[in-house]
């Protein structure tokens, strides 16, 4: 793994905006093509293998949590348990997730699994693919995201309820809208009829006991870029429980897998796995060099790094009331003072590509940059 500094494409902003990438720059640049990461084929194969193996372990871990009723450890409310178990037992359609890895050139370690609302899908599947077409089209990239999404929607199509597949996200985020619309784009290409409805426009028809869109069409299948941990605390969750036949994608069992409480469970189940860092719930912690993470948090918020029991770096935020886990630290080599994190996609049960985000800080937050990559083969 190497980082190379390069000159961006002329007028790259126009190039990416033509793709529909309207959030390439916020207060600070988000998409950064002043550099790229180069991987050897053997490194990519290692990432691919780890992703496949971890996916299998994660499914085993979900079964373990359900079997042992560990919901309290996950701060999952009692009223959500039935729908979690139903979605698991019914094998409700699920499509994707993103493992975040640290890589030191030899060892690859899982930091967390974004299994419910992973973002940077569009950047990984589309923006960096077109960047490579312009930069070095003869080179390869670990990135079959687009093909896999279309193929998997085709596979899922007969398993969905007949009719429209709705897509939803919040109104106020262009990033979320782009991600949801990209996913919808892939579903359209798979031959599925689709509609977009913003999350707060979803209606509940009391007479028919069904969710409806703005045209009062029943919602039977819905891809949501909106987290379960928010939904369970909102007024319509009671209504959701009244109509458990709706396919919410990602399904409710992802409440277990997207929760950082899964990390100590994975450590307990697979202490000899080379990809899994030693990890405990805070009350059971025995580590002195560790990263303390809220079981629910986003964009690197409320994370503390401890060395010899002392905080050496931390971030602020609004999370933490549900509890914390403590995960052994793993030193990632810095490239020109940047710390890269590998986001490895699993789509339809298979490793499907990766995206690299880098940060000046050891903690990847909402000011991190997305950097393209290629394979040197």
């Amino acid at each position, binding site marked *: 793994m190497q980082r190379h500094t390069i000159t961006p494409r002329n007028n790259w902003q126009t190039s990416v905006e033509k*793709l529909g990438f309207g959030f390439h720059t916020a207060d600070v640049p988000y998409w950064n093509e002043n550099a790229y990461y180069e991987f050897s084929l053997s490194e990519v194969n290692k990432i691919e293998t780890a992703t496949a193996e971890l996916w299998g372990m994660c499914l085993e871990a979900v079964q373990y949590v359900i079997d042992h009723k560990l919901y309290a450890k996950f701060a999952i409310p009692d009223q959500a348990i039935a729908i979690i178990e139903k979605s698991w037992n019914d094998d409700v359609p699920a499509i994707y997730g993103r493992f975040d890895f640290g890589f030191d050139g030899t060892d690859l370690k899982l930091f967390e699994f974004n299994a419910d609302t992973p973002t940077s899908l569009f950047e990984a599947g589309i923006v960096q693919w077109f960047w490579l077409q312009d930069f070095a089209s003869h080179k390869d990239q670990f990135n079959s995201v687009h093909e896999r999404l279309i193929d998997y929607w085709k596979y899922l199509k007969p398993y969905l309820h007949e009719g429209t597949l709705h897509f939803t996200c*919040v109104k106020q985020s262009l990033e979320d809208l782009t991600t949801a*619309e990209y996913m919808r*784009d892939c579903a359209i*290409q798979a031959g599925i009829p689709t509609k977009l409805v913003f999350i707060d426009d*979803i*209606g509940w028809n009391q007479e028919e006991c069904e969710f409806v869109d703005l045209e009062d069409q029943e919602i039977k299948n819905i891809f949501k870029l909106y987290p379960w941990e928010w939904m369970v605390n909102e007024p319509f969750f009671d209504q959701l429980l009244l109509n458990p036949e709706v396919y919410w994608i990602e399904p409710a069992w992802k409440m277990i897998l997207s929760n950082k409480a899964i990390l100590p469970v994975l450590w307990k189940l697979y202490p000899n796995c080379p990809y899994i860092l030693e990890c405990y719930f805070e009350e059971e912690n025995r580590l002195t060099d560790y990263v303390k993470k809220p079981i629910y948090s986003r964009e690197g918020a409320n994370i503390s790094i401890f060395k010899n029991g002392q905080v050496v770096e931390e971030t602020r935020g609004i999370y933490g009331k549900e509890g914390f886990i403590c995960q052994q630290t793993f030193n990632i080599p810095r490239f020109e003072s940047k710390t890269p994190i590998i986001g490895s996609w699993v789509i339809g049960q298979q490793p499907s590509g990766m995206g690299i985000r880098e940060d000046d800080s050891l903690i990847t937050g909402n000011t991190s940059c997305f950097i393209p990559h290629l394979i040197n083969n």
Partner: protein
Amino acid sequence: MKKSKVVNLVLITAALASCSKPKPDWDSNEVYMRSDTTANYTHTQGMHLSPFLWYYAFRPYGMYYGGTYHHSGYYSSSLSKRSNIGRSSMKGAAIRGGFGGTHSFSVSS
């Protein structure tokens, strides 16, 4: 090869590069909106929204009674009533705003 052989988009570039459905003879510098596809478009007077901000236009609002959140309409100083209310006879049967009310920021993770 580990990369997609071909990448085509059928929706996203069009959806995010313009702020509304095709609208013949409309001034491309203006924004026309409706909250219901059975309703008429409203020309948003005085608003020069970036195409990327068109989705800011609507805010469901309502109130709680009987233990349930009841949506009542949309906050939009530039949207007329005729564009909020369409021909759907079922419109009044649906309660809206029961998801999404507590979080309006990105789910970015």
